[in-house]
């Protein structure tokens, strides 16, 4: 049992793995793969993510078809049915839920300790967070397209090329919503507090946006509410995707989405930095103060 110092210690084998760009890509791939494995392992999560927008589309939109006519406004060149109008918003809603869901899984990871394992990786922390973000976006884009595939049977009127043109828009909106979720995950200390995130983030973002109704309609009832919707980054994510699905580019929406992504991602990096982080100031993950 003796473990006194021995000569082999001086020639311990070199560290396996690499710290360069290739190593980082391997790391990124591993994080994305784990997220996808977890996602496909949780089939109920996939179905619940699909059911929500489909209920909106098949029931809510059908019910309001005649009450909520939508007049001509870009990118539409003609009158469209309400179902057609809501499809982009519902697809981005999937990403909104997904962004918050990955944030929830970050909080969960922190509680069960696998966040610690991630953070002991030798790569810079912002690269690890970026990998987490990319992993979440991959899942959300898969879900958004699965929804569009089902919605296709519902006369959604999207030109075939629009599905391709919208991919960068979905990536951008996924990154933005994921970055917001990432930042929120650093604020939420325990899983139980997450219900309030749902109430105070998801619902206001979704309803105060152009996802369900064009903003001119909101302006008719309240100028203030209209400006609130205009300031809501979710509105711009929806508009970016909506225009892209019809082969058009919306520069303002794009600028807002990119700017919001950068802002929230930077905040998340600061929050997860051990030197300045909110986690460190609060004493780290719950139950770990010993």
């Amino acid at each position, binding site marked *: 049992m003796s473990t006194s*110092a021995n000569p082999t210690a001086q020639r311990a084998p070199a*560290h396996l793995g690499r710290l360069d760009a290739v190593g980082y890509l391997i790391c990124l*791939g591993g994080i994305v793969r784990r997220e996808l494995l*977890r996602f496909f392992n949780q089939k109920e999560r996939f179905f619940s993510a699909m059911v929500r927008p489909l209920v909106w589309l098949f029931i809510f939109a059908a019910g309001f078809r005649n009450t909520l006519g939508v007049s001509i406004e870009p990118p539409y060149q003609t009158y469209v049915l309400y179902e057609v109008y809501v499809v982009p918003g519902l697809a981005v809603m999937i990403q909104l839920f997904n962004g918050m869901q990955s944030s929830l899984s970050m909080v969960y990871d922190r509680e069960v300790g696998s966040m610690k394992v991630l953070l*002991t990786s030798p790569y810079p922390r912002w690269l690890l967070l970026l990998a987490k973000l990319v992993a979440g976006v991959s899942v959300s884009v898969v879900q958004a397209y699965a929804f569009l595939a089902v919605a296709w049977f519902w006369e959604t009127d999207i030109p075939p090329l629009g599905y391709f043109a919208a991919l960068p828009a979905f990536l951008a909106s996924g990154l933005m919503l994921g970055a917001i979720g990432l930042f929120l995950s650093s604020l939420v200390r325990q899983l139980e507090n997450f219900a309030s995130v749902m109430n105070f983030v998801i619902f206001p973002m979704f309803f105060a946006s152009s996802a369900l109704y064009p903003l001119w309609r909101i302006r008719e009832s309240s100028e203030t509410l209209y400006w609130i919707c205009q300031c809501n980054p979710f509105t711009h994510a929806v508009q970016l995707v909506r225009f892209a699905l019809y082969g058009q580019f919306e520069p303002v929406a794009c600028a807002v989405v990119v700017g919001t992504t950068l802002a929230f991602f930077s905040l998340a990096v600061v929050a997860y930095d051990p030197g*300045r982080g909110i986690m460190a100031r609060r004493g780290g993950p719950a139950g770990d*103060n010993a």
Partner: protein
Amino acid sequence: MSEAPALSVAGVGHRFGARAALADVSLSVERGRFMALLGPNGAGKTTLFSVITRLYNNQEGRVAIFGHALDREPSRALARLGVVFQARTLDTDLTVEQNLAYHASLHGIARRAARERIAALLDRVGLADRRADKVRTLSGGQSRRIEIARSLIHRPSLLLLDEPTVGLDLESRADIVAIVRALVREEGLSVLWATHIFEEISPEDDAVVLHRGRIVARGTAGTIGQGAESLEDAFRRLVAEPGRKAA
């Protein structure tokens, strides 16, 4: 640089608000040595581990791993370090291999190299036949062995284990101790092992006793235990508090 110890902790302090969790903690794990970090619950062992693993900011003092300062060269320092945390940190829905492959990628190990390394390590911890099983089907002791295999995947030279045998039966505990001792003996790994189970410590091991965030004794386990009936007895006296029976 080649003379630098495996782990050097110098004057480390850490505060949570007004409460000092660590104060002026200094220790050094020499290359190829097994050091026991003893302390009752709440002594600051986990906080110290969190500072060394860079989960917490290094507020005061200096930490270096094989001469790489944690604040200046975090990547190089962390690359040499393997950790087994106190809490179970495996993904129970994934298989043993998926868990290990994930960890290999966190260290930038390419797939083929990872596959070979995983096979070798599973062999080492005696669980080669459980490779394709989901982690949730493993016993507590088996999960722990997988976590040790995981912590070794990038060939670290320093291994940190935070009370790795807590909650395990006697046999599993002995297995884990034997695996880590063999790594020190055969591969020259340096180990910092936090515990309050005295059977896991040999008299010739280096040891430090942490109490209320301060180091109250250091030396080999044998010298700390001198003058008392046993190491445990010496430890109880060191951490005894007036009006309260010690841990």
